[in-house]
């Protein structure tokens, strides 16, 4: 917790990084000033796009002492307003999992190349980004904590599999390599409470270190203060749980 007599500074800017297949993509980075070492955080934007909420979320992690990077997972889909680019990706059935994993791996490597980043890096995502955060925790090496917020389609039926998302992430649960925290709204339709239960049962079955928090009176996206889905009480409590988890797993 910051004290009122404490020095505080931050740098936030757009950078270039190497993503999937070595492609150069852009990313938004926010970091506390100082020599560190600070833990790192990869911030995965939600399906609607690489938008202002994620800029603020990236800065929020930096404010709490994490060097944070939010890669533009839609870089290859053209440029324009986040909504227009996001709508294009929506029409294409979302970003391909393989490409996303490559970009997230690149973001982790980018963080780990910095002299002021400690040896611990976490990954945070909401909505499709929650799904991708879990997927990354299972498929990538070198992540130390996963924060999954209402990850939709972690549990997928065979009919829901697509060329872009060919495997349901729950199938990879046994490969999860770090602790995970999950936040979910009990009124959510994607994931439904039943899907969250199935997700948790699989983590339990494979003896993974996890904590799931379910909120009554909340649906999908209850952190988004710019949407009607925002639930102040649940969001405040959720953020407290997120930072308690990251302080424990990444410091």
């Amino acid at each position, binding site marked *: 917790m910051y004290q009122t007599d404490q020095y505080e500074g931050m740098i936030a800017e757009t950078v270039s990084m190497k993503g999937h297949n070595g492609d150069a993509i852009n990313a938004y980075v926010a970091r506390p000033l100082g020599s560190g070492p600070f833990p790192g955080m990869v911030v995965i934007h939600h*399906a*609607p796009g690489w938008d202002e909420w994620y800029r603020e979320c990236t800065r929020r992690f930096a404010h709490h002492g994490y060097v944070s990077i939010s890669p533009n997972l839609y870089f290859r889909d053209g440029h324009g307003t986040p*909504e227009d680019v996001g709508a*294009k990706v*929506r*029409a*294409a059935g979302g970003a391909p999992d393989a490409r996303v994993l490559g970009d997230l791996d690149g973001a982790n490597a980018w963080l780990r190349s910095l002299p002021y980043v400690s040896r611990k890096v976490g990954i945070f995502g909401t909505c499709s980004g929650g799904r991708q955060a879990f997927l990354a925790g299972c498929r990538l090496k070198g992540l130390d904590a996963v924060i999954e917020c209402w990850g939709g*389609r972690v549990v997928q039926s065979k009919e*829901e599999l697509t060329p872009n998302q060919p495997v349901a992430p729950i199938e990879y649960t046994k490969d999860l390599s770090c602790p995970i925290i999950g936040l979910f709204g009990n009124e959510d*339709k994607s994931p439904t409470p039943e899907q969250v239960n199935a997700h948790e049962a699989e983590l339990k079955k494979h003896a993974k270190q996890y904590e799931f928090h379910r909120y009554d009176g909340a649906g999908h996206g209850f952190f988004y203060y710019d949407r009607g889905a925002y639930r102040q009480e649940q969001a405040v409590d959720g953020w407290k749980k997120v930072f308690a988890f990251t302080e424990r797993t990444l410091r």
Partner: protein
Amino acid sequence: MCTMIAHQVKIQGRGKSGPEWFEVQEANVSYDHPYDLPLEHALNIDFVNEALGPGARVAVELSVDAARQLVKTIEAVLAQADQRGVLEDLPVAAAPARDPSRA
């Protein structure tokens, strides 16, 4: 998106985005998160021209009931026009797109 329910159809027509008209070549229809309508999921239609970039887009986000009413209304209007013998259509190869950056 969290449902990934999206279809695309090639179309011919014009759309207006801001003060300018442009040729629309695709309609992207999805049932997924809208940007502005206060629903978790909605029937979204984006009339776009992919060749012109992501900004060439005319978007609507509809409730389920509105979407169903729209489909029925379009069909009814076309049927009425057909009955009166006034239906016409563009040739398969439409006129080239106007540059939306030009007034």
